[in-house]
């Protein structure tokens, strides 16, 4: 039954993707991309990947759309029709797709419990997580401890994106003089969205914090929490105006969150090293190794949350604060 539903969703996914590529209005494309992300998130959920679904919904459908729209406001939203080159591209990608489809017939089937992926490394994680960490969410355990080094890398990817956007948009736009700066006041004169927003934003942030600290027990963790809280603040910025949001959380604080989060994560690793373990070996942090793991994971998840939230908001503000040059 659920597979029939998945079949329907996947078909819809393909249709949406084709519609995205065909649409000439970029605004339509971006909105369809949001739908695409939501469909993808539902698919992930059907395939038992609750954490990934939460992330895709918060990031793909939430933050990415806002950043896209901010960029569109600066660059214009009409695509020019083009003349040539489409046939060749179509042939190339068709060949690629056919090659992949041909090779898939040797893949293990969807849901096959005898597939190699379910035999080797993964069962060890499922078996050892209760023993080493003593909490139920295996995804969090792998993410923050067994493969914690990858996650450290991920935090630095976000950090790189943040400083990159600040660096690239750090130069003032040319021909600025001809622009009369319009005070951005958001939707202040719209009473209804504002009232509803005020009602909702605290709950969004609260839910973010819940995701942050409940990540060891249910789906969630630093990354999802960071993205959710960032979404809440972005909603505030859209309703009350960007200046108001910056007054609540200034740019310096945001940058501090990014730098602090990345450093917090890294320094936990270094402390582990100083206390006689390997880099990121949280077991040495407390007398009881299980406690040590839990403590370490709590701290690094906080680091991830801070860094992601700060980075996404910095990126949003960097785009939103820019004026359009025509």
């Amino acid at each position, binding site marked *: 039954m659920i*597979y029939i539903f998945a079949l329907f969703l*996947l*078909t819809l996914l393909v249709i949406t*993707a084709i519609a995205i590529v065909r649409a000439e209005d970029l605004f339509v494309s971006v909105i369809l991309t949001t739908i695409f992300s939501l469909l993808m998130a539902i698919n992930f959920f059907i395939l038992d990947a609750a954490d990934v679904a939460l*992330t895709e919904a918060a990031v793909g459908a939430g933050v990415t759309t806002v950043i896209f729209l901010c960029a569109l406001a600066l660059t214009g939203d009409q695509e020019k029709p083009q003349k040539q080159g489409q046939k060749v591209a179509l042939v190339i990608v068709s060949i690629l797709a056919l090659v992949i*489809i041909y090779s898939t017939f040797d893949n293990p089937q969807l849901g096959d419990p005898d597939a190699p992926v379910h035999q080797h490394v993964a069962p060890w994680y499922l078996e050892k997580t209760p023993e080493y960490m003593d909490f*139920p969410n295996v995804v969090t355990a*792998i993410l923050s401890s067994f493969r914690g080094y990858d996650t450290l890398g991920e935090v630095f990817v976000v950090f790189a994106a943040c400083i990159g956007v600040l660096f690239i948009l750090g130069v003032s736009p040319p021909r600025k003089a001809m622009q009369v700066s319009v005070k951005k006041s958001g939707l202040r004169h719209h009473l209804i969205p504002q009232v509803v927003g005020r009602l909702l934003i605290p709950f969004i942030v609260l839910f973010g914090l819940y995701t942050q600290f409940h990540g060891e027990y249910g789906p969630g963790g630093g990354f999802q929490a960071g993205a959710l809280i960032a979404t809440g603040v972005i909603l505030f910025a859209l309703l009350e105006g960007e200046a108001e949001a910056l007054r609540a959380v200034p740019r310096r604080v945001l940058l501090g969150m990014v730098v602090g989060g990345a450093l917090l994560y890294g320094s936990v690793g270094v402390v582990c090293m100083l206390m006689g373990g390997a880099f990121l070996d949280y077991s040495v942090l407390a007398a009881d190794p299980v406690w040590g793991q839990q403590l370490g994971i709590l701290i690094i998840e906080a680091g991830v949350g801070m860094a992601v939230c700060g980075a996404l908001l910095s990126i949003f503000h960097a785009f939103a604060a820019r004026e359009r040059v025509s």
Partner: protein
Amino acid sequence: MTFLELLGYFNYWVFAILLAVGLYAVISKTNLIKKLIGLSIFQSAVFLMYITMDKVEGGTAPIIQAGVENPVFSNPLPQVLILTAIVVGVSTLSLGLAMVVRIKECYGTIEENEILDAD
């Protein structure tokens, strides 16, 4: 091969098609933002492939619950990898958009052929 067995590969076919659609947009479109949108479809396709392989028939999300007899869990590892990959995707996208904004400011257009003509 029965119909049901073929259905077991459907996810991989969708992966292949989405990959092709994304790559098509990247190669053939001249509008830089459209290229970035294509790139994000392209990356999403890979996410779908990874998540597809984590599913176990009759399994649940890998969150261990007390009191359940003989639980079957889906594979947690691909989920972890894709969590990381999603972040990487967003980071690349925002960096790319920042560049597009600067290109618009410097060249006055975001169509690739017009940029090439301008230089």
